[in-house]
């Protein structure tokens, strides 16, 4: 029952706020942000509480049977396929559920303050609740189609929230881009399901792991699943939507595009880890792609001037770290990083939101500076987040990131290349985060004087979540990954963990130092640089390409073939009619002549065919 309630509460919140919004807006009234936000936040808080009790219940169980399953109803049944609508709460789900509901509650709370001026506040909260509902479906679903339901559902919520300010078409288009790129990934998911059903005969998450599959199938299945993850979790090649997704409200970025939704790829891989880990090809693909993404995104982040975009690329990069972890078989480490990342990245986003809020929407970091005095709480909490993402001990990021770097080296599947990618990315992370940190909070105020004076600390509803998250960023890593996923875990290795720990801290410090060196004084305005031009290439390939294909289909196939065939056949009939009509000259004698010719033809035929007749 509790599992169900966990997902039902956000759904309830969604309905209440949604209907409220509709009624209010058709009557032209405004909804009180506080009331609406309270409903939404309470729904999430209730959900979180329930998740906690479930978690505790789970802890009380013996390790091998830690599973609370609730079947709501039979969803689809056709032939050999039987899909139940069931919710499974186990260790992996627990982590994600707690993160979603916990961080979610905080962000809901934060939104009450952040979005207080928003006209359609009830709509906003209903979307947020809807997102949480779908996300919980994703992590609690017991079957692949159920996961897919959540998978698409969060995509939808993401679409809605990115395009929340829909009067600006770019926002809408950013949402569309996210939705469609996710859908491209989803195709992988779908086909993976088809393959899974064809060869394993089931779509149940537990059963499919038990199924005996040929290595070939496993590889294809794993690659397709990973392809789906690249969409949802913004990995190469489908990562370009995430920076654009920053068009949405900042709390949304914090919740969806940093803490929860984008990590569902990790969830899926972790969930299916026996199958994923069964194929070396899949694992190394994941690791390489993850590493490359971490590196590329980090490089791009160094050249961004938009506060949120830096954080967005940072998210992509961090997600790359998580995939690296999965790719070397250390799924539990990846999940651990999901958790810590959720804390500190949400924190960073919320703090950034606080900055943006204070500056009335200013997002260019070269228009900021010197805000540490103006926004002390934001500054402190941001510092915590900064430290965490850099991996400075004892912040949470240190533990998870360090472990990832360690695993890339010592795991079965790890190797030096991946390790190198991880190290360089970590250094770059330190560089761009420090750059950001310095540009925002230190130096001179580079914005209008008036704006600077107007800047003020956020209200408590925004401050409190910041504080909580800052705490979590600090302590979140101390418990280690609360899950045990022992596939591909490191064995005893001659490389000491402490050495790696030392190396990673040094690397982070180096990166930070470099940034400090460059940006502590020199605040020359840098334009955003599209380093790799990937977005542009995609724009040409997908956007223009699709348009070209579509107009090509319309022009060359539809117009020149399909319609032309119809026209030509009509014209041919018409032409034959007109040609036959030529004989209709109007002269009786000509008609008679033609009759004679026909008669002669018939008789000739008669004689030819009748050569055997008679006696001649």
């Amino acid at each position: 029952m509790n599992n169900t309630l966990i997902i039902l509460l956000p759904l309830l919140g969604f309905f209440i706020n949604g209907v409220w919004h509709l009624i209010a807006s058709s009557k032209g009234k405004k909804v009180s942000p506080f009331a609406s936000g309270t409903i939404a936040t309470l729904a999430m808080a209730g959900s979180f509480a329930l998740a906690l009790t479930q978690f505790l219940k789970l802890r009380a169980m013996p390790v091998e049977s830690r599973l609370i399953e609730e079947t709501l109803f039979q969803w689809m049944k056709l032939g050999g396929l039987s899909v139940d609508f069931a919710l499974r709460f186990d260790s992996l789900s627990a982590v994600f559920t707690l993160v979603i509901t916990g961080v979610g509650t905080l962000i809901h709370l934060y939104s009450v303050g952040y979005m207080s001026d928003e006209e359609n506040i009830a709509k906003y909260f209903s979307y947020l609740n809807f997102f949480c509902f779908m996300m919980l479906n994703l992590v609690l679903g017991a079957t692949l189609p159920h996961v897919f339901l959540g998978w698409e559902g969060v995509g939808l919520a993401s679409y809605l929230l990115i395009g929340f300010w829909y009067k600006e078409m770019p926002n809408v288009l950013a949402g569309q881009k996210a939705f469609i790129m996710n859908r491209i990934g989803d195709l992988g998911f779908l086909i993976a399901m088809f393959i899974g059903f064809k060869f394993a005969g089931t779509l149940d998450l537990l059963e499919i792991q038990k199924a005996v599959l040929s290595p070939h199938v496993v590889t294809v299945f794993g690659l397709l699943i990973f392809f789906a993850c690249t969409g949802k979790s913004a990995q190469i090649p489908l990562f370009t939507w995430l920076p654009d997704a920053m068009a949405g409200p900042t709390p949304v970025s914090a919740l969806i595009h940093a803490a929860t939704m984008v990590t569902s790829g990790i969830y899926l891989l972790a969930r299916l880890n026996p199958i994923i880990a069964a194929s070396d090809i899949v694992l190394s693909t994941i690791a390489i792609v993850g590493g490359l993404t971490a590196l590329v995104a980090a490089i791009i982040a160094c050249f961004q001037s938009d506060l949120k975009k830096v954080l967005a690329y940072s998210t992509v990069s961090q997600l790359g770290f998580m995939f690296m972890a999965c790719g070397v078989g250390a799924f539990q480490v990846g999940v651990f990083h999901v958790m810590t990342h959720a804390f500190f990245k949400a924190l960073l986003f919320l703090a950034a939101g606080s900055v943006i809020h204070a500056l009335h929407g200013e997002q260019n970091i070269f228009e900021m500076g010197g805000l540490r005095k103006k926004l002390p709480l934001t500054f402190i909490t941001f510092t915590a987040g900064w430290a965490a993402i850099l991996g400075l001990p004892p912040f949470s990021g240190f533990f998870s990131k360090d472990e990832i770097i360690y695993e890339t080296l010592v795991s079965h599947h790890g190797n030096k290349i991946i390790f190198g990618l991880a190290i360089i990315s970590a250094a770059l992370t330190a560089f761009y985060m420090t750059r950001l940190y310095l540009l925002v909070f230190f130096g001179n105020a580079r914005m209008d004087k008036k704006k600077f004076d107007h800047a003020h600390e956020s209200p408590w509803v925004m401050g409190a979540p910041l504080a909580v998250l800052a705490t979590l960023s600090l302590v979140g890593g101390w418990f280690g990954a609360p899950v045990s996923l022992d596939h591909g875990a490191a064995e005893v290795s001659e490389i000491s963990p402490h050495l790696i720990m030392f190396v990673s801290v040094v690397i982070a410090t180096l990166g930070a130092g470099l940034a400090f060196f460059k940006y502590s004084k020199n605040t020359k305005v840098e334009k955003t640089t599209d380093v790799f031009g990937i977005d542009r290439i995609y724009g040409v390939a997908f956007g223009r390409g699709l348009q070209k294909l579509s107009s090509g289909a319309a022009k060359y196939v539809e117009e020149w073939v399909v319609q032309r065939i119809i026209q030509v056949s009509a014209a041919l009939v018409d032409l034959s009619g007109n040609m036959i009509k030529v004989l209709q000259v109007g002269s009786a004698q000509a008609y008679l002549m033609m009759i004679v010719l026909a008669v002669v033809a018939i008789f000739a035929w008669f004689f030819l065919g009748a050569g055997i007749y008679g006696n001649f």
Partner: protein
Amino acid sequence: MITLEPWMMLVVSMIIFCIGLLGVILRKNLLIMLMCVELMLNGVNLSFVAFSKMHQILDGHLTVLFVMTVAAAESAVGLGLVIALFRNLRTVDSDQIQMLRD
């Protein structure tokens, strides 16, 4: 020695029939066309009599009588039509009556 045989009449009748047909096709004067139709009928009449002779029966003769009657009636109507046409168009040229076409 060759004697007169009905098939010779048949050959003549066929020739006359075809000449009549050719006349209908080629002549433009409606009156001559009507005459050629009569020629065709005559040709057939001859063949009837010839066949009658061949079969040693008289049915063919009877038929010829009826055909003659029909021919008379038909040519009367035909001439009536030609007269009606002539009243309107002042012509008996078949080339002048090609308004209805297509």
